[in-house]
């Protein structure tokens, strides 16, 4: 069974000593682990073995975690085609799974398999050693059945890293201090924000969400408040443009010269070699994604500039909204969640992740709380029943504590 879930099993996995000594960690292959195959599930990185640990892996080792092996993932972190990180948890083969979240992949994978998924604040956990297509949004996500384990893992992996200059030292200090403090208690008044008209502009259904919010509202000390996020309905398009443009540029390094698959076709020059090799390496979703990025980059650069401006507005607007509420609640998914081969289109991809991508654009922490999942539940149903909470940047500890309270309310434990 292990071999169905893990693409690589670490035969020498053994726990050390430290705060994570009882924790088995599954690591997808987009996160560098020294001497492990690190192909991010792409032929473009076929047989690539990482030369060094990602900083966050070093920190896990130092904390005594046992690194179990590689779970399967969507090519270069895009989407969830063939993903097995949730299975590693539900089948009891690991306690924590790590998965890069650039559009909502970690939270969505968690929702589908009925566990918690957390995307920390952008810049809290070092990016050094992560392989993804969208550097300005890439963040190591954490899945687990236990929010406490997620909290410990975040705390272990977080902190300034001299290999990653894009981190914000002040924000990190604040976030790390949050893990040391006692945090919000279960009785504190809690204001939960709901984005005004979040579903109408996007043509989505809000019936299940309404019921969940109603249930949260019945708990003592919790107030529901409507907040306005300017341009919320544009978030999907903004992510689409910025994500594809960054991907088109980032994927340039997959040139088949120094690693990965190289074409066997006879070619006349190196340009032909690039074209054939890349054509044979990338799957349909990555190809379509890179094509779109190329289009915006070369043919409609102004769209990219507009998208960057709207992204800045979205960040400001979300930050302002989070001054009046403690957190914002959204479903993990509300419309179609594409579950099969059909997910190989960019629009199908964005249909699936239309609600999770906001936190990737703005860098805010976001945690998904699973709905009730039984063996018969489809992925789409599971995602639609799951909620995600978005909190202020660098208040990761506070968000996880509040997620625990809301999860208890939803499961009727309060």
């Amino acid at each position, binding site marked *: 069974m292990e071999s169905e879930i893990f693409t690589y099993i670490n035969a020498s996995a053994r726990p050390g000593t430290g705060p994570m000594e009882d924790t088995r960690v599954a690591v997808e292959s987009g996160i560098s682990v020294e001497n492990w195959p*690190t192909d991010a599930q792409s032929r473009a*990185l076929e047989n690539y073995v990482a030369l060094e640990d990602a900083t966050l892996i070093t920190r896990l080792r130092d904390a005594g975690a046992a690194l179990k092996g590689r779970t399967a993932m969507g090519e270069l972190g895009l989407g969830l085609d063939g993903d097995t990180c949730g299975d590693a948890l539900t089948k009891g083969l690991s306690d924590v799974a790590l998965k890069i979240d650039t559009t909502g992949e970690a939270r969505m994978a968690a929702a589908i398999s009925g566990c918690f998924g957390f995307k920390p604040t952008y810049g809290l956990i070092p990016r050094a050693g*992560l392989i993804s297509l969208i550097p300005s949004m890439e963040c190591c996500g954490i899945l687990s059945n236990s929010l406490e384990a997620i909290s410990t893992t975040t705390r272990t992996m977080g902190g300034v890293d001299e290999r990653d200059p894009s981190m914000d030292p002040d924000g990190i200090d604040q976030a790390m201090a949050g893990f040391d403090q006692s945090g919000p208690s279960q009785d504190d008044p809690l204001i939960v924000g709901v984005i005004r008209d979040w579903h109408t502009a996007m043509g989505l259904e809000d019936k299940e969400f309404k019921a969940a919010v109603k249930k949260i509202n019945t708990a003592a000390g919790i107030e529901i408040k409507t907040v306005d996020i300017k341009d919320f309905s544009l978030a999907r398009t903004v992510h689409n443009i910025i994500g594809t443009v*960054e991907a088109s*540029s980032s994927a340039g390094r997959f*040139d088949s*010269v*120094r690693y990965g698959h190289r074409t066997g076709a006879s070619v006349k020059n190196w340009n032909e070699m690039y074209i054939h090799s890349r054509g044979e390496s990338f799957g349909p979703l990555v190809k379509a994604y890179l094509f779109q990025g190329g289009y915006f980059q070369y043919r409609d650069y102004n769209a990219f500039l507009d998208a960057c401006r709207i992204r800045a507005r979205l960040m400001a607007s979300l930050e302002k909204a989070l001054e009046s509420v403690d957190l914002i609640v959204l479903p993990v998914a509300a419309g179609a969640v594409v579950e099969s081969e059909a997910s190989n289109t960019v629009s199908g991809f964005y249909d699936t992740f239309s609600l999770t991508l906001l936190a990737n654009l703005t860098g805010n922490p976001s945690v998904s709380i699973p709905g009730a999942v039984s063996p018969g539940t489809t992925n789409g149903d599971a995602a639609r029943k799951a909620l995600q909470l978005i909190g202020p940047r660098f208040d990761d500890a506070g968000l996880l504590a509040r997620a625990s309270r809301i999860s208890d309310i939803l499961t009727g434990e309060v």
Partner: protein
Amino acid sequence: MKYEAVIGLEIHIQLNSATKIFCDCANTPGDDPNTNVCPVCLWLPGALPVLSREVLEKATIACLSLNCEIQSESAFDQKVYYYPDLPKGFQLSQAHKPLAKKGWVEIQDEQGRPKRLRLHHVHMEEDVAKLVHETEGRVPISLVDFNRAGTPLIEVVTEPDFRSPHDAMEFLKAIRNQVRYTGCAECSMESGTMRCDANISIRPEGSDQLNTKVEVKNMNSIHHVGDAIAYEIKRQIDAVNNNEPIILHTRLWDPEKRVTTAMRAKFEGPCIPDPSVPTIVLDDAWLETMKSRLPEMPAQKVKRFVQDYSLTHDEAVLMSSERGLSEFFESVVTHGAPPRMTAGWIATQLLPALKAHQQTLAETRVTPQRFASLIQLLEKDEINSNSAKSVLEKLFEMDGTPEEIVEKFGFRQVSDAADLAKLVDQVLSDNASAVENYKNGNKKSMGFLVGQAMKASRGKANPKLVQKMIKDLLA
């Protein structure tokens, strides 16, 4: 119709920081191939660039020496192009927000009048890898050396203020002098630490339109830049006169054939902001620190040398032309040598001797202290200039003070009147006809007679004293 050229330059200067721009690898591209590499400069997946502080500081100081306005905010972009010397598919460069804007350099135009040439901006970027093409074997192969990948460059982009090859060549000399002075770069076109591309177009004289430009690359000396520009201006004028259109493209200078030939352009896309290297924010305090690290630049130094040491303008310019030279000069003067005599001897004796010995001021045995003692012996008439030249030669060959060398080899000048009187008497009686000529008004004969006396003393007589004695005797 008469045409004038509109020329702008793009100059890449390799900074001499200890490390590359985004990693800790040594910035010594000439080492054995692929020895100065790491995941960052090999551009492996997952590696992140970390901007070197030293590179930022040296780039800033170089920009200050070119009178630029340092921007409080600058950032790196990904300049996308596909070529095997850039296997990650983009170069980190400052396309949208450069480190410095504006700036100027002063040159002298063909008539010797001062002319200011303006810079548009200066930005930082990483160099790409070096391709080595091996065509010897049956299958030609291209090898990639990553030692150069990620070495730090600044690119100086000028306004199209240049009208002639002269302007371009003087400009290159001027920025080389300025930047070398700061100690932040070697700026040698010959060794590739300074590279220059020229954008050239022509227009009817007196018009202010900007026509299609042609880019010319591959000049590896300042003279080549001048020659290539001259060639390209003529080529374009000929083309226009023959009703051929000028097309935007790139040409390579061929130094053997002395012509430019069209090359296939690399594919270049637009630049997107790099998400990994943070925006560079510089505050006033930091900038003041950088300004304080800017050495006294040649223009100020010339003024001070004229004022403090009574050098002529030309002497001061020469003594300030290189920072090392100016420091040597001042050190000699500080050791007590008279400034003008020092400047003259450095220019006419020491620099040619260094060249002959293939040495630099930094490495030669002729220290400022030893050179100062030599000049002082000369000034005090203890040796004459002939002997001084011999002593200088000895200073290159052996240790010891100039005084010791003078004693050891008997270079001391003979100024003793009794000794000289004997010698002069002998010379006058041996050269009766020259004496006759002198008495008849041929002043040139004096030179001859003094020369004979010097020869008789084997160069050690005090020539001024000898001349005075002959004059007195023949009066």
